[in-house]
């Protein structure tokens, strides 16, 4: 076994032809979830049956791997009424899973979710699933079209969050385990992983610099927006104007790899119920509706303001150690209106919504 210090820098290489062998071993240990060719030409994260299904050259799937740690409908408690007594038992999903070839932004998002759910009061349901999940990320040598991960320090190369970081070096992959869980996924693979040379590690750093150059100046400048949002210096009139370009679909929340707000409901009857956690959206009017009929965020502009305060305010940055956005760009694809993260951040920076 490597010491903890060494494990942090346990860096290997893996020949591309040996990837199949590694995946086959992982399949023997648990579920492997990876980007695959889904129905209708869509790339999706799904459970694979054989190593060949894993995509290596792909646009990041529209749906993030969040469904595998925090499903949209998530049974958390079983409730049984027998006679006079009521039994309540937690439901824990302890299936061992490998999230393979997730992009660095998504890996960082899972780390964000885990940190949130670890914070007391800790969420045992989420954590039991997360504890059995190993995140294996693949760096983006060429950034995707809509991403702005450099703005939130979440990519294009792994920046915390992956248990194992893969980098495509051409002939082989650089394989860096960053924790015991990552290390375990590499163990027992006799001869498959060779220690990486200093040159190979340097090659990774060159590729990272090259990948970051792709972004040029086209970043969304969280900085000045964060200052204005944190200090309440965004005009209500601007929120109002922007909110007319939001259709309250909730898509930005549901597709966001870091959004975790939920509601709770009971399914069943006849003495047995399953309490489920269900994804919720802070953009829905009734999200904050109180039983009296009072709604502290009755107007759409207030809900929008709240969302962006949570995502990019200094207050939350300090609490969470990062912005609540990993720059994956998915909200641009799903926004039914025009109020995706870069559009709103740009409007706040320019103090004006785009003219029409």
């Amino acid at each position: 076994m490597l010491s903890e210090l060494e494990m942090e820098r346990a860096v290997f290489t893996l020949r591309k032809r040996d990837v199949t062998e590694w995946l086959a071993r992982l399949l023997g240990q648990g579920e492997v979830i990876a980007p695959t060719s889904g129905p209708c030409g869509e790339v999706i994260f799904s459970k694979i049956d054989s190593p060949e299904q894993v995509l290596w050259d792909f646009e990041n799937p529209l749906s993030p791997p969040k469904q595998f740690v925090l499903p949209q409908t998530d049974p958390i408690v079983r409730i049984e009424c027998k006679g006079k007594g009521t039994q309540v038992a937690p439901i824990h999903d302890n299936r061992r899973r490998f999230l393979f070839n997730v992009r660095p932004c998504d890996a960082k998002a899972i780390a964000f979710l885990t940190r949130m759910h670890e914070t007391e009061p800790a969420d045992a349901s989420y954590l039991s699933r997360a504890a059995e999940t190993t995140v294996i990320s693949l760096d983006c040598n060429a950034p995707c079209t809509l991403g702005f991960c450099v703005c939130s320090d979440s990519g294009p190369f792994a920046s915390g969050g992956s248990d194992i970081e893969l980098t495509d070096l051409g002939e082989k992959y650089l394989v860096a385990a960053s924790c015991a869980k990552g290390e375990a996924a590499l163990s027992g693979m006799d001869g498959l992983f060779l220690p990486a040379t200093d040159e190979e590690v340097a090659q990774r750093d060159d590729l990272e610099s090259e990948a970051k150059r792709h972004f040029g100046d086209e970043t969304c400048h969280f900085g000045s927006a964060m200052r204005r949002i944190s200090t309440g210096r965004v005009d209500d009139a601007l929120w109002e104007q922007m909110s007319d370009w939001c259709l309250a679909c909730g898509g930005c929340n549901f597709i966001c790899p870091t959004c975790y707000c939920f509601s709770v409901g009971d399914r069943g009857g006849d003495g047995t119920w399953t309490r489920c956690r269900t994804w919720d959206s802070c953009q829905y009017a009734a999200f904050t509706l109180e039983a009296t009929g009072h709604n502290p965020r009755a107007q759409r502009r207030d809900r929008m303001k709240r969302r962006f305060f949570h995502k990019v305010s200094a207050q939350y940055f300090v609490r969470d150690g990062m912005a609540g956005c990993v720059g994956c760009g998915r909200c641009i694809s799903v926004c039914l209106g025009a109020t995706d993260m870069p559009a709103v951040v740009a409007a706040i920076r320019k103090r004006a919504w785009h003219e029409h």
Partner: protein
Amino acid sequence: MLNIPTTCPCCACGCGFFLLARDGELVGVAPSRTHPVAAGKICSRGWSAHEGPLWGQRLVRPLLRRDGKLEAVSWDAALDHIAGRLQDLIQAGKPIGVLGSPRATNEENYLAVRLARAGLGTNHLDFCYHSLCRPLLAGIEDVTGDSSHSIGLADIESSNTIVLVEGDLAKTHARAASSVLKALASGARLIVIGCARTQMARVASCFLPTVPGREGDTINGLLAAAIRTGPTEGRGAMPSAGLEPLQCKLAEVNITEEMRVAAEWLTADRAVFLMGPGGGDAGRLRQDAAAMTSLAVITGHLEKPDSGLLPLLARSNVRGACDVGLAPDRLPGYSHIDDPEARRRVERIWRKAVPIGSGLDAEAMLESVSGLILLADDPEAVLPAGRRVRAAMERLDFLVVLDAFATAAVETAHTVLPIASYAETEGTFTNFENRVQKVRPATAPPGEARDGWRVLADLCTRFGTGSAWSSANDVFHEIAEAVPRYEPAERGLSAGGWGSSLIGAPAWTRFALQGAAAGPAEADGHAYVLALDGTFDWGSDPLVASSPTLRREYQSERKLFPGGFVEMNSEDADALGVREGWRVKLNSTHGEAVVPIRQRKDLLRGVLLAPYAFRDCLSGVLCEHGVTAVNVERA
């Protein structure tokens, strides 16, 4: 996790998404960039579309009413009972009706049509929402000779000018509203006709404030302005009858500066016209729709491939229901019931004679048939008469309900057949763009529920008009025979992938131009106009009402105001001395009602709006046609 590509069962936009299922249970929804309608963007209803089937109160066993109570029986017992009871009614000469549904697939509706006309020998055939959208479709047909025309959302996005008769597009058809926003972002002009500064009105380039019931005046103004502006060169090649009488009719119409400018914008290269079913007098609504269609003709946009009119139908499969002949007077493909050639075509397929003459529509049917087969619908939730429909339902000698959900209709049913929801069955929906799209099962139906098309096929067989259908595709194959314009879709559907196939409408030969009816004379002494907002209540639809996420959005108002409310302009409320939640007394020639008000700054003065869901609370004061002149005082 299974990712099943399917079509959204909610509004008529027809977005596609993946239903996610794990261990045989629905888990969620994932959007897809590759779907031709959705292109990755779905609305709140789509995002929670898995919840209705998962959380809903599902029908899981066939039920038979004995001594006033519904009891579980076997499928054979239920089907035998239905066949026996309906045969008895037929032999006794009692009328039988069939109501299909825009929530059902084309395959289910088509078999319901065949069962009614060929099996039960009745032309009493319709669907409840038809009562609301019929005037709109008829108005389009009056001008073009055909009501199946539409355009696509892509046409909205590439248009230069958009005319919208506003209900509340952002809420009723959010995906279409998304296309409007996209067009605006690329510089298009939006002209909105409506009684409130809704979201679409606020982003519009031109808002034409219009009191409910007076939409025709505004459309006539636009028509007059468009005629004065004159046709754009090279447009309007199609012969149009009725221009001169229309000019005479419009001679006295007041053209405002806004209308003149709007008409100028309509000379642009591409323009689209969006109009949904409205509330009020059916004859007036039909003329309004005809006038809007005429505006599209006069400005030369109806004949252009990427311009034209989009009827904003409410539910996923309204278009398909019309296409397959779910109407008292039409055969599959819109031919009139007495058209000899069309009769021969379907009689050859059905191997049975079809009765002659139009049947009763949904509202009339409920009042007068003895036996009724109700497929996937809840008349009191849909029809304008609301809860008053229940008395008619209770009066029925024999009511069969086929549904996936335990709706209010089940409470009066004599026999209940549990069928699969959209998430568990195979079939097609046709969206408002005329796109036939595949619906696919993500899980098995619960309990003993069966595919709706199988149950209807079984009933067809029992009434002597069966065929050897072994799959929903077989049924679609037959639809393609009966409805010629569906034939090209068959290959697209079987090709895999989304199974989304745009079908054409027949080519036009000439247009008959029409203006709108002038608005009602100033109501003597009545200061306000009371109107219903919208023509469809998602809050009482099982897919929305069963979903915990959506129910909260769509039903919170009725929990807070169980007796309903009317929305009133804030200045009007100040003038009356009433505040939010205070009660007012409404008085019309029809009667009176006392309801609380909610204030709205964006509503025109003198207009009172009540959500369609609250029509029952206002039945005392609302006249039959919905739009009613009222007086208001503090209660």
